[in-house]
């Protein structure tokens, strides 16, 4: 697989990125190079700046310093090639609209201003819904969806965009087993098509299974590379240990670390809503 990346323009290249909210740095001097065609998990404790990093790659934030290149060009010129799956909680599911309508929003970018989606967009949206196993719910009001269904609607919306890079913010957060499997299948399909996926991920146990690259982030970049090379106890301790030095958690990790990869605390703690950008 590594051969394929050689000599190619990386899908995403982040250089010296520093982002701050008020005085607090959310990201400090982060470098990241994501070769085309990998599934990359971004892991790190709460407040590590994971969502912030995604938003910066999308060009939704203005960094204090540094730049982001997408296929060698500024992100503004490459919007069509990126698609984004936000956290489920970031939108109001009481909004009066249907599943199909939300999925069709993925086509708005190429439609541009004023033009309305038509039959073609509708067909594509239905096909994407089919792909995530939601076709028969296409007329359902979004207020009636379960959490897993909401997540799949968002995934279908991203698929409709037919991008080269997929940015996902905690796609596995709080979903049922069925949806989790559906997402995994989808990730594999995307990899087979040579797409790049960058996902904020929480469940450390499943990182080696679902992803092939991993970035360990805690405001600064701790490590990034193929899972086999960088996903080790040393790096995990650097990532989670420093931040939680005062908490009992750190001691626990030290005691139990030899046996397992650091336990997934943040999930049992009710999810990562404090990524600085929330």
């Amino acid at each position: 697989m590594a051969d394929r990346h050689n000599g190619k323009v990386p899908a995403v290249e982040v250089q010296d990125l520093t982002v701050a909210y008020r005085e607090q740095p959310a990201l400090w001097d982060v470098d990241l190079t994501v070769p085309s065609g990998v599934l990359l998990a971004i892991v790190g404790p709460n407040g590590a700046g994971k969502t912030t990093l995604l938003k910066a790659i999308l060009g939704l934030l203005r960094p204090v310093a540094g730049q982001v290149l997408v296929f060698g060009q500024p992100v503004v010129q490459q919007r069509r090639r990126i698609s984004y799956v936000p956290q489920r909680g970031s939108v109001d599911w009481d909004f009066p609209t249907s599943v199909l309508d939300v999925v069709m929003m993925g086509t708005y970018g190429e439609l541009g201003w004023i033009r309305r989606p038509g039959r073609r967009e509708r067909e594509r949206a239905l096909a994407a819904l089919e792909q995530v196993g939601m076709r028969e719910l296409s007329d359902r009001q979004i207020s009636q969806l379960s959490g897993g269904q909401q997540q799949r609607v968002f995934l279908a919306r991203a698929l409709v965009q037919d991008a080269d890079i997929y940015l996902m913010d905690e796609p596995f957060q709080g979903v049922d087993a069925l949806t989790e499997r559906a997402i995994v299948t989808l990730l594999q399909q995307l990899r087979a098509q040579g797409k790049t996926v960058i996902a904020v991920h929480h469940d450390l146990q499943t990182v080696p299974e679902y992803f092939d690259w991993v970035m360990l982030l805690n405001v600064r970049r701790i490590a990034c590379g193929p899972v086999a090379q960088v996903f080790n106890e040393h790096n995990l301790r650097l990532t989670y240990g420093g931040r939680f030095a005062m908490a009992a958690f750190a001691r626990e990790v030290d005691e139990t670390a030899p046996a397992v990869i650091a336990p997934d605390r943040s999930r049992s703690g009710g999810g990562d809503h404090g990524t600085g950008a929330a």
Partner: protein
Amino acid sequence: MTAPQVEIQLIAAIVAAACALPGAFLVLRRMALISDAISHAMLLGIVVGFFLTQDLNSPLLIIGATLTGLLTALLVELLHRTGLVREDAAIGLVFPALFSIGVILISRYAGSVHLDTDVVLLGELAFAPFDRVVVAGWDIGPKGLYAGGVILLINAALIALFYKELKLATFDPGLAAALGFSPAAIHYGLMGMTSLTAVGAFDSVGAILTVALFIAPAAAAYLLTDDLARMLLLSAGLGITAALSGYWLAFLLDASIAGSMATMAGVIFGLAWCFAPERGLVAAARRRARQRWEFAQRMLAIHLLNHERQPGAEPELQVEHLWQELRWDRGFATRVVSLAEERGLVTRQDGRLELTDRGRLLAQESLLA
């Protein structure tokens, strides 16, 4: 009805519809209170504009006042962005200040100019028919009608044109930004529309009550439908209803027309709140009641199933003892049994209860679930 009465109702209906359209988006975007701020702060723009032009219908005044509205939205956002105060507090700081300057200006100079505090603040629709448009000697109707009509058309056209963008930026601003639709442009577009509408509405309903026409019909519509396009139409329809019924309430009580319109808008919301088909209080209460009876019937079926499985427990199957066993109120138990009978879940033979096949199935299902 006399001609002025018809004209007043027409103006009221048009203004209400014009307000309700942007109002629907304000409600969905959680910006209801920005419309409150805009319509208050607008007073300053109108007063200053009036001092300069001496004409409440001058295009310059309308533009100036609209810009004041936009400025208010901008100030609220800037203040919020400093991170020193929260958004609600930012709203609560900006508009009273601008509004106060407006009120002071009116009271200081109202003597020398023809601008009545009450009219600007509270609106006086009753005077609207006296201000006529005359073209080449022909009286072609009251000015308010044309002003309101133009604004309604502008709002409807803008929303129709940018429906997709408004929907996207309202539902998921992050995605809108990522797709290259500037949420800021859409936000300020909507704020501009709101300001223009508030300017157009103020001399009919006054600076304060425009908020009622922005929010109440849209909030009611929000409870009645799950489809954005339908919500927009419904908002406009409910706004018109509030305007017309408000007019007649005012006529009946010989009271403020604007106030009556706001009151009726509130009544309409209240009705939707209580009686909305799926989300209303009544519907919710009935759903809860139905669930309660359904649950009780399942309990009954499970109870009977348990008894079937342990023979020799005959007495408990008597309706007479059932309520003690299940710790139910006696009347409640009787009702549950007769409901279950109606549904064919149980049969009764000389005071003894037996499960039917259907009841047995339900009990087994419930146990599995």
